[in-house]
């Protein structure tokens, strides 16, 4: 039983890392909190669902469409965020809070509150050995998120663009003075974020039930992992994701599934209150 929990914890955690990746990059580069991040993931999931249900597209082909849709959306969002005044972090939280409400209700209108699921039988099959079960879906999650992290790491540390992004993350003003176009960096961050969201959404729709209010949980998870990992630390996202996934699996076994949502909330509050280095490190006043 514990092995299964371990496996599902890692698989779920990998998925969480994928969700967090987009958020972490956008926040790191632009310092804008996007509280509607989870809603965007759910939206991408709904897009995939709609393509699968209404147009008969198989799951694999929904990914590129979802990514494309999210790219368009995220470019618009970047413009919105760039209009915000100081204090940026607080204003972006409030504005994106409104955005989350807007998107939630939009999805409620378009898809109703019924739970939706993309049925992809291939994903539920898997390997069953000695009491350990590993579905192809879980395997795909782990592989996909590791690949995504790997690619992101490659981008950040072995390309010029990545260097510019990292510079912007570390010190916006300094980067601007060094000639980096910070606005373009913001666009890039939103773009890469859109890709991560566009990939996470259809996955979400096939392993989780889709419903309009699901976004908030996803956002909290993304924020928790981002704060845990610290700004600009990519590898921490995978570790954080796995730890969170394992913590949730443990909680489900020890306390029951209805306590699962509490795990990320408590961890997030703990991180915020006990102030790890990372996003927080700002001297007061």
């Amino acid at each position, binding site marked *: 039983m514990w092995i299964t929990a371990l496996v599902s914890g890692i698989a779920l955690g990998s998925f969480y890392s994928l969700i967090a990746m987009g958020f972490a990059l956008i926040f790191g580069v632009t310092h804008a*909190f996007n509280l509607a991040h989870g809603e965007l993931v759910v939206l991408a999931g709904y897009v995939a669902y709609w393509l699968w249900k209404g147009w008969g597209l198989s799951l694999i082909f929904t990914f590129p469409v979802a990514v494309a849709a999210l790219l368009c959306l995220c470019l618009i969002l970047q413009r919105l965020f760039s209009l915000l005044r100081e*204090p940026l972090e*607080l204003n972006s939280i409030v*504005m994106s809070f409104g955005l989350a409400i*807007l998107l939630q209700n939009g999805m*409620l209108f378009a898809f109703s509150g019924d739970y939706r699921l993309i049925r992809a039988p291939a994903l539920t099959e898997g390997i069953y050995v000695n009491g350990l079960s590993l579905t192809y879906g879980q395997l795909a999650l782990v592989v996909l998120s590791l690949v995504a992290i790997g690619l992101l790491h490659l981008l950040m540390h072995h390309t010029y663009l990545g260097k510019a992004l990292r510079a912007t993350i570390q010190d916006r003003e300094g980067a601007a003075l060094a000639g980096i176009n910070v606005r373009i960096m913001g666009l890039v961050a939103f773009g890469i974020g859109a890709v991560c969201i566009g990939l996470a959404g259809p996955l979400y729709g096939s392993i989780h039930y889709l419903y309009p209010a699901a976004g908030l949980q996803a956002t909290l998870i993304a924020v928790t992992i981002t704060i845990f990992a610290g700004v600009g630390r990519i590898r921490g996202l995978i570790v954080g994701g796995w730890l969170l996934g394992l913590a949730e699996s443990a909680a489900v076994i020890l306390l029951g599934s209805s306590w699962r949502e509490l795990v990320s909330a408590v961890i997030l509050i703990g991180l*915020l*209150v006990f102030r790890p280095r990372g996003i*927080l490190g700002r001297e007061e006043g």
Partner: protein
Amino acid sequence: MERAAPTKIALPGPDRAIPVLLLLGLVLLPFLARSNGYVLQVFTHALLLATLALAWNILGAGGLVSLGHAAFFGVGAYSSGILSLRPGLSPWLTIPVGGLFGAGLAVMVGLLCRRLRGAYFALATLAFVEIPRVVTDNWDGLTRGSLGLVGLPGLPALTLGPWRVEIGSSASASYNLVLSYALVVVFLVALLWRSNLGLALQAAREEETAAKAVGIHVDRYRLLSLILSAFLTGTSGAIYVHLTRYTVPGLVYSLHFSAVPVIFAMCGGRFTILGPALAALVLYPVDQFLFHPLLPAGHEFLYGLFLILVVLFMPGGFWGALRRSP
């Protein structure tokens, strides 16, 4: 004897007309809408939401944005509901007790989040709602879990000597009660902002370091404002639950009750006294009468849209902008 100068947050001078007219309309409503119970119901709810927005703004105007006020709302609702069922206490007693439970939760939140500011405080409050919600959902023995509380007593009759006023069974009496409560809240909030405590909270919002340097114990006053805000929110939650006479965790702890005070306070005007209430009394009925019939599902997207527009283009809110004329 001259009092301390009124703060920037003040009851309007030349534009006193609008709130007065509105008040007149609200008082006359039960007579005007005698035949239409739905209208009365909508405005009862709007008034309750107005109290939520006013209570939220006690924190908001002090510079702390809470995205999780539903926690206090729900705790107030459930504590009042449970106490009115089990020991069978009268709602007149359990409603303020609900407020006290809200205040108690606020002490926990406030002490825990003492060092948090701005966006991080907002995040913490957003996450914090989950704690009372999940606990309520799982503590079947006390709260009947996700089944919720049903058959709650309505607001009981008021007996004053020879007079007896039925409240719970009468739509207009319920309305008048909530209206009176809302007026009390407005009065309390106005009192706060005109007091020295209100001045301190505003100073702390403007420049925390300078406020400390002139002797303001910022942490303590903020905790105080949080407790007050939560007390009123919890009381409103308790009143709500005795109006609807049932509740489930997913209802009173929902994002709706966290979002609505934020939206009304920001759209109305974070730096005004009446702004939050005015926004509630305008936006909610518009939403219910105009948009709900058009879009039965998802009509609240309007709230989200308004919040985005206000943050981007009108940070002082509509009422704030109206009163900007010096």
